């Protein structure tokens, strides 16, 4: 099974480990991520202003390329790309006037034929978590995982439709398939502070602190995420949090594909853990997810 794949900018730079692990795991799970040629940035934020069409031309071109390449499903790993592409596609499918305006401008014939899928969705709907469980060679038994969804993977639910908005479970089901134990924590769908990190870092710091504390208080060993920006805030803000709160203990924040890779038996040396600010290796070793 071959899926057209849109990595997005961050997965070529800061979030390389999300991408590497995702591609390697797909090979082991028997599907191929076929990177779109000549892809451009998705735009990184979905234009919320009604008449702001130009920002949707980029993602529309990506969607039309997918269709021309002969694939009907486009897979993404990054929550932001997923959100922008999926919502743009929703406009293509439901708003004839805006679709005509945008496709006329980019001179493409596109009506929303592409199905935008998140990697997690491929695992759930196409592979199946039961099948995934069978492919796991190293069950992550005893590892307590806080599944952090963030905002963009789920909202707005009518356009995204990946899972219920207020109490999603897809991530927990995924973690169970890997043999690990998901912990229920009330901040799993709170905002991490997102782009506030650029100009009001204290906001992102506060948001991240509350999320991480909630995860730890509920017994988590590690936090997983699908979003490069969430990962950045939750991981890189921890020294800042420690400055204002001496009692704060750190907790590693890794991509879900990194955990998946471990469970599929991929060597931790290939997973870029050294790029994490809070080193996940001690906890993973202590819990037996990595043998020395």
């Amino acid at each position: 099974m071959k899926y057209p794949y849109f990595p997005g900018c961050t997965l070529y730079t800061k979030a390389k480990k999300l991408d590497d692990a995702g591609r390697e795991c797909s090979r082991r799970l028997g599907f191929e991520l076929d990177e779109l040629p000549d892809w451009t940035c998705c735009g990184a934020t979905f234009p919320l202003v009604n008449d702001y069409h130009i920002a949707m031309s980029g993602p529309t071109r990506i969607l039309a390329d997918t269709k021309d390449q002969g694939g009907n499903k486009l897979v993404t790993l990054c929550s932001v790309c997923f959100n922008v592409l999926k919502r743009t596609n929703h406009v293509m499918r439901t708003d004839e006037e805006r679709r005509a305006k945008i496709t006329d401008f980019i001179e493409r014939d596109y009506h929303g034929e592409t199905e935008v899928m998140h990697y997690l969705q491929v695992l759930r709907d196409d592979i199946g978590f039961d099948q995934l469980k069978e492919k796991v060679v190293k069950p992550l038994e005893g590892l307590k995982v806080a599944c952090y969804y963030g905002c963009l993977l789920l909202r707005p639910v009518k356009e995204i439709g990946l899972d219920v908005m207020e109490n999603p479970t897809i991530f927990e089901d995924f973690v169970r398939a890997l043999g690990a134990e998901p912990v229920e924590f009330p901040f799993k769908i709170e905002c991490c502070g997102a782009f506030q990190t650029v100009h009001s870092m204290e906001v992102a710091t506060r948001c991240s602190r509350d999320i991480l504390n909630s995860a730890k208080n509920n017994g988590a060993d590690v936090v997983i995420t699908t979003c490069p920006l969430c990962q950045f805030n939750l991981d890189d803000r921890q020294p800042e949090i420690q400055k204002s709160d001496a009692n704060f203990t750190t907790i590693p924040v890794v991509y879900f594909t990194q955990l998946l890779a471990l469970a599929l038996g991929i060597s931790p040396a290939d997973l870029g853990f050294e790029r994490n600010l809070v080193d996940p290796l001690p906890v993973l070793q202590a819990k037996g997810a990595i043998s020395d």
Partner: protein
Amino acid sequence: MKKLGVFVCWCGSNIASSVDVEQVVVQAAKLDGVVHAEHYMYMCSDPGQQKVKDAIKEKGLDGVVVACCSPRMHENTFRKAAGLVGLNPFLLEIANIREQCSWVHANNKPVATAKAVSIIEATLDKVKQNLPLETITIPLNKRVCVVGGGIAGIMSALDLADAGYEVVIIEKEPAIGGHVAQISTTFPYFQKLPELLQKKIDEVNAHPRITVYLSSEVDELEGYVGNFKVTIRTRPAFVDHDKCTGCGKCFEVCPVSVPDEFNRGLSQRGAIFRYNQGSEHQLPIINRDDCLHFSDGEQENGEKCQLCVDACAEQAIDLGAIRSLQEELVGAIVMATGYDVYSPANLPEYGGGRLPDVIDGLAFERLLDPKGPTGGRIVRPSDGRVPKSVVFIQCAGSRDPERHKAYCSRACCMYTAKQARLYKRQVDDGTAYISYMDIRSDSRDFEEFVQQGMEEENLVYIRGRVAKVFPEGDVLKVFTADTLSGRQLEIEADLVVLAMAMEPKSGVRELAKKMNVTIDGDGFLSETHIKLYPVESSTKGVYLAGCGQSPKDITDTVSQALATSGKIQTMFSNETLIADPLIAEVKEDVCSGCGICIDICPYGARIMDDFKRISMVNQAVCQGCGACIAACPNKACELINSTSRQFIRMVDDFSHKAQMA
């Protein structure tokens, strides 16, 4: 040859300013058969009607055309007047020269005048072929079926029974009383509801003219206004209530333990149970779905569970009982189907359905009931601790068009204020927070009731919507905002009470279909007209009361229930029902019995006569809409006094004039 009269109305200047009424009278007088023609400023006025009556008497008219406004305005007025002087009312027709002539040709008097004459000529030709008709009388069965034994059904039934009519109540649950039986106290006067209600229930049970079907539902409905046949499906209680002494031994032996619906899951019950555990008046019943005897679970010895049967000294339990079907013939129906509480599980952000100390308003009522699961003590379901901080969240699931219900559930502002005040009276060192969007306290003494709570009982009202409720340690954290001061708030609560939206009772959609009653987009039963016909459904003879029609409090529910009773008594004040004879008619020798009209009739008025093999018209149900006439491939049906022959003649009149012009 008929002697026809024409009466042309000025309608003040409405008609006379653009139609030359004198010229119209001159022209009309020349038309075939016309022996009298006159005009008058307001023909619908008393002197105007007198002119019509006088001319009928003096000239012996046997056909009349009044040229005036739309027949919807004054057709009845003039037909009544004609009837008083002995002319069959159906020999009088209206020629509409206002809406269809003077108003549309206001600036062209010659055209308007010529058109008025044409309309009158065509109407005269129709009158010539009109038949004198008599109104149809329909037999009237003066019995009433009330669907739903909540407070609406009870009050409606008692009023009708007291007026002398037999009433049948169909109640889905094993006891009447509805949700009111679960509520502790009224607002705004803090009266004890269980006592008030029990009095009414006793009256129902003692009433010689009321029959109650418990654990029952409407299986089928046939017939029409005055003549309904209701088939009632009753689930067995499996306990013979004539033998049962209510000793309670069966409760002790039943191995099943499931959440008690009546107590909103705050206590457990067996498969054999009292529907309302706090009511000593009720006798046990068995819920088939919960009972081990009926599930495939067998005991070790290979036999099915019948511990209760063995325990019963009176041998009152019969596990072989089956459901029964009974028929009742009635003339009117009251739909008092009530509401369900929108499930808190729909609000996962508040932990609804997941966190034990997040409960709905009705569950809080159970905590307040002295005969409820906690003996009337307000305690946390999780650990039985007295909550020192309670957050009440209003509009939970209401007024949220994007995700939940768009409408306001109307009773919540008031019952929340009542619950918070009762909480403060019981836990005087506790704090009651109320999260609200607006406070809707728009009835007598309601506003004062809320104000008193704020000022004298220190209820903390916070305007804003709660974002999130989650457990932290053994308390609940509530994230909200005070939008009046613009601050974000975090409240530590021991208990959270959700004032959940009301939604139509489950199964009402199917029931409405059986009754041919329309429902609105939210599933509530629709009245015919919100202002003028507020308790009439779209089906004649079916009336609406209570929360099945829209969310409301007990006061409004009872008012509406008594209104249905009044409407039905008005109908029952006649010995028979009268229907308009302007309905469809079948030419029996032309009808081939194809049945197309039966499918097309929106009122279910066309029926196949199995003996004659032709389609007949149910005169009581037909509304004269004409759908079957258009659909009939053989032209076997006609609308009485609006036959195709009459209409073609009228069209001929117009086209003839057009050719001449």
